[in-house]
């Protein structure tokens, strides 16, 4: 039997490849298993916030509370805006009166007047649920009342929630709270009822300056996905390993 050098090399390569394939690669997957393994291929909702663009008007908070029937005057909210003012003495002055619902109209922070020439940096940071890839709040639910949808949004089943509050304690970002009327855990849903109809989330629509944007990370033509993949973006509390899906442009280390 003759064998050219070319044939020998080709067969050697094939042999090496075949040997490296584990037996499990030949296991037949059911379509459901295969789908579960890759996840829903079409959609992964993500959020992008540009801190420079936020002026602290609080229209997002106002719109969110009314859209999602969160009691307007109760001190709870699904999204909020924090103000960070860093002065020359190195101190951070941070406040969010009523979650920034009525905007920031005063230079005073907790009654303390801060003069412009004392400020080294100052900005507003909108916050909301990070819809984590590994949501700690979902892991701890003892009854299966909170879960992650196939497109990455974490929701709460109000008929199923027993109100134990584990998830509220588990969230490293403090985005969950107890709904004063329904008496169950409550959180931002990325306006699931709107985004699944092709609308913008209420806070995104209400923002006059485009500081808040919602996009689909799996759509390469999506401008939000494009920005997240090609520009310098930050996330909050990376060390918790929850893989948050709210990305910030211009994040500062003082923001926690």
């Amino acid at each position, binding site marked *: 039997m003759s064998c050219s050098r070319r044939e020998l090399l080709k067969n050697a390569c094939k042999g090496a490849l075949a040997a490296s394939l584990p037996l499990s690669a030949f296991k037949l997957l059911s379509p459901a298993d295969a789908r*579960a393994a890759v*996840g829903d291929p079409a959609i992964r909702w993500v959020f992008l916030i540009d*801190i*420079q*663009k*936020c*002026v*602290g*008007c*609080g*229209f997002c908070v*106002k*719109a969110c509370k*009314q*859209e*999602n029937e969160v009691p307007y005057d109760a001190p709870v909210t699904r999204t909020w805006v924090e103000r960070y*003012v860093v002065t020359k003495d190195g101190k951070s002055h941070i406040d969010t009166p009523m979650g920034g619902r*009525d*905007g*920031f*109209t*005063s*230079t005073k922070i907790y009654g303390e007047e801060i003069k*412009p020439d004392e*400020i080294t*940096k*100052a*900005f*507003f940071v909108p916050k909301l649920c990070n819809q984590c890839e*590994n*949501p700690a709040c*979902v*892991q701890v639910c003892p009854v*299966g*009342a*909170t*879960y*992650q*949808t*196939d497109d990455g949004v974490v*929701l709460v*089943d*109000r*008929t*199923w929630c027993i109100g134990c509050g584990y998830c509220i304690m588990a969230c490293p970002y403090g985005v969950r709270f107890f709904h004063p009327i329904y008496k169950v855990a409550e959180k931002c*849903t990325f306006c*699931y*009822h*709107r985004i*699944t*109809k092709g*609308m*913008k989330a*209420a806070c995104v*629509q*209400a923002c*006059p*300056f485009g500081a808040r944007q919602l996009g689909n990370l799996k759509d390469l033509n999506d401008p939000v996905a494009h920005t997240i993949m090609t520009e310098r973006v930050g996330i909050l509390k990376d060390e918790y390993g929850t893989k948050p899906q709210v990305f910030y442009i*211009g994040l*500062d280390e003082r923001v926690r």
Partner: protein
Amino acid sequence: MKNHVWRPLIVALVGIALLLTARAVMVPKDFGVNGRSFTYGFYRKGNVDDWKNFKVKYRGKEYCVECHDDKVTENLASPHKVIECENCHGPAVDHPETPATLPVDRTRELCLRCHAHLAYPQSNRAKMPAISPDEHNPGIDCVECHNPHNPDLEAMQ
């Protein structure tokens, strides 16, 4: 079979059978592992549709323009074109049916959300056309002089 082992065992078995029957009846059929794993996807599938069917209240400028095209056209030619009508007029919900009229927020506080001057260098707030609320006509509503649909200072009455 009448001994001290079997009798309590039967009671226990009947108890377990009752529990399983009750569970089968009471747990919805769509409850179970629906997502990527037990850890993150153990839930009632029908709840996803419950959330999708939640009522939309903020309808957007595209909805307002259907009837109020004169106001929207005026607004779209002004620097205030970036602001949604419902930010000041309140959510439309099913307007004009319910509510028939929208509660318009004409307060000074509403305007000050953006136009109270805050010199914050790392925020575009510092670049906003702004006033000092304590010095610029305190106590008077902005809409007394300024037209919110078109706040052009040249066109001011």
